[in-house]
């Protein structure tokens, strides 16, 4: 369009000057049209020499799923399919949310025919999200003259920057119901296992290796030692994506902490062999059906990489949680920042239905306070917020919910361990 516009304007100018010169019979005025005419002729000849270009391009990356804290090298290979071009300016436009760490996103120079050659190489980093790369924008110059042509070269690729994860020790949970496959979760059922469960009288068919000889010596009766079975269980992770449940802390958003915690927990539960599902609660019902293994973890991380905050009236509070999606008596893990009275009531209701609940609460009070000026009012506000928070978490703990009070400046693993010790003490 640019060349055509230039040609049209210059040709119009030539015509006006020439006609004006001819009509006034002023030779010098007509002479003025000659440089413009020369420009037009050059433009027309060089544009006709430059046929429609056929350029092939491919973007290469070694993987498409990248943890948020890592970088990825992107290379673009290009070649002309029909004829070589003396000068091309290709610019690989990177999506918003990513940034270049090193290298250049452009290439300027000649482009030959033949095999695809790597022309652009750069290292990219990004924040959590799914990124579709747009077409490569290129500007071609003709062999001779002033004609230029803009082309868009499609080289589709999709990169997923996954939330960063913390490596956690195996998390100890005790749901009321487990599955029949062997796993790490204590099932509250006698059988073969590691932890002692109880003693009972010997019955026909029992393994004689499990006879408790000390008890036999004391009572003169055959007693069998039982151990607690260890099975896998259903774990449903619920990521709270309601806009009102999160807030900005400085330049960061608590939702990012929530997705990181969810990713860490999902990785830990999947590595233990559990049946893990994910519900992102806030926008639409983004539900990943429970499953096991590496591919299930990839599915969950993919869903987390594109999860966004939302404000929908239908999901204003936790009462609309579709409890029927969760297997009965299974383990629920809720990750959120701020809850209110209604949400606490909902969690209590779920607990009363037999679900074991682990609530990961992101405590941003310290971070928020650090960003505020030191004054009496700030101190007072922080104390009130802390009291309110303690009150809510305490009431949840009284309902039997295991509460993990996680300060994002510290490790999630430590918070889980501390919470486990407190919860065990409370249960005893």
């Amino acid at each position: 369009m640019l060349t055509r516009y230039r040609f049209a304007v210059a040709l119009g100018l030539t015509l006006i000057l020439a006609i004006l010169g001819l009509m006034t019979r002023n030779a010098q005025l007509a002479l003025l049209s000659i440089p413009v005419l020369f420009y037009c002729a050059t433009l027309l000849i060089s544009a006709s020499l430059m046929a429609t270009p056929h350029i092939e391009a491919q973007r290469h990356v070694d993987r498409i799923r990248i943890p948020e804290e890592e970088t990825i090298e992107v290379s673009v290979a290009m070649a002309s399919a029909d004829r070589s071009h003396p000068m091309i300016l290709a610019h690989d436009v990177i999506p918003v949310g990513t940034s270049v760490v090193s290298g250049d996103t452009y290439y300027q120079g000649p482009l030959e025919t033949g095999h695809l050659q790597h022309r652009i190489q750069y290292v990219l980093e990004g924040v959590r999200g799914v990124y579709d790369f747009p077409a490569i924008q290129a500007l071609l110059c003709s062999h001779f003259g002033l004609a230029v042509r803009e082309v868009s070269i499609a080289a589709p690729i999709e990169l997923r920057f996954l939330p960063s994860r913390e490596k956690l020790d195996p998390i100890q949970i005790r749901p009321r119901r487990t599955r029949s496959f062997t796993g790490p979760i204590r099932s509250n059922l006698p059988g073969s296992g590691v932890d002692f469960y109880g003693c009972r009288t010997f019955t026909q068919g029992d393994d004689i290796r499990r006879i408790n000889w000390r008890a036999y010596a004391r009572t003169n009766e055959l007693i069998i030692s039982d151990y607690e079975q260890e099975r896998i269980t259903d774990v449903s992770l619920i990521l709270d994506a309601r806009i009102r449940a999160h807030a900005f802390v400085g330049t960061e958003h608590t939702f990012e902490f929530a997705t990181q915690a969810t990713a860490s927990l999902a990785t830990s539960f999947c590595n233990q062999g559990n049946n893990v599902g994910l519900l992102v609660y806030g926008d639409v019902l983004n539900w990943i059906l429970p499953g096991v293994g590496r591919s299930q973890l990839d599915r969950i991380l993919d869903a987390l990489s594109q999860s966004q905050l939302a404000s929908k009236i239908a999901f204003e509070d936790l009462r609309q949680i579709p409890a029927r999606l969760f297997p009965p008596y299974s383990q629920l893990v809720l990750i959120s920042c701020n809850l209110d009275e209604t949400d606490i009531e909902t969690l209590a209701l779920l607990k009363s239905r037999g679900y074991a609940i682990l609530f990961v609460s992101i405590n941003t009070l310290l971070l928020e306070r650090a960003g505020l000026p030191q004054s009496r009012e700030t101190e007072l506000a922080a104390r009130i917020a802390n009291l309110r928070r303690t009150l809510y978490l305490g009431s949840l703990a009284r309902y039997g919910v295991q509460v993990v009070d996680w300060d994002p400046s510290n490790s999630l693993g430590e918070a889980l361990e501390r919470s486990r010790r407190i919860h065990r003490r409370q249960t005893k």
Partner: protein
Amino acid sequence: MRMLAGALVTSGLVALSLGGIAQHDLVVAIPGIALAALWGLAVALHWPRLLHTCCLGATAALCALSVILRMPLLITLFSISASLYGWDLALLDLRLLSHPREATFRLTRKYAIRGLSLGLAGGGVTLIARYIQVQLSFFTAFAISCLSLVLFLIIHRHSRGVFDENPSEAKEKRTAKPPASL
């Protein structure tokens, strides 16, 4: 590219203004300086291309006026050539805004050398043409004007296929049928 475009457009117009001042033709000199300032600002601040085209039209009008007022032809030729190639560079610079500045260095250098050499060649052709003496009657000149107009229309029509960025898409657009509801 922006600097080169700015330098070209202002130098052409300043030369014209200086010529006007030397000949006491303030009707050329004052608008020339004002236009140089305006166009320089338009180039520097990336104003839309329509404004650049209007500035080119105004420069051509000033050049025509200076010829009528019998100012030296060499200055007028320099002014219109510099303005034309400056306008060309300014339009290309607008298009290159989305590219990183350091990426356009080689392209700019190559393009500027081509533009300047073509400008010099155009000026040379014009100077040669100046020595060709042709006597025309009014009706012959009128006939040539009409012929030029017809030629313009033909060339413009045929140049569509040459300049279309994506000829297949453009053809589809031209031949597309309106929807049935219309």
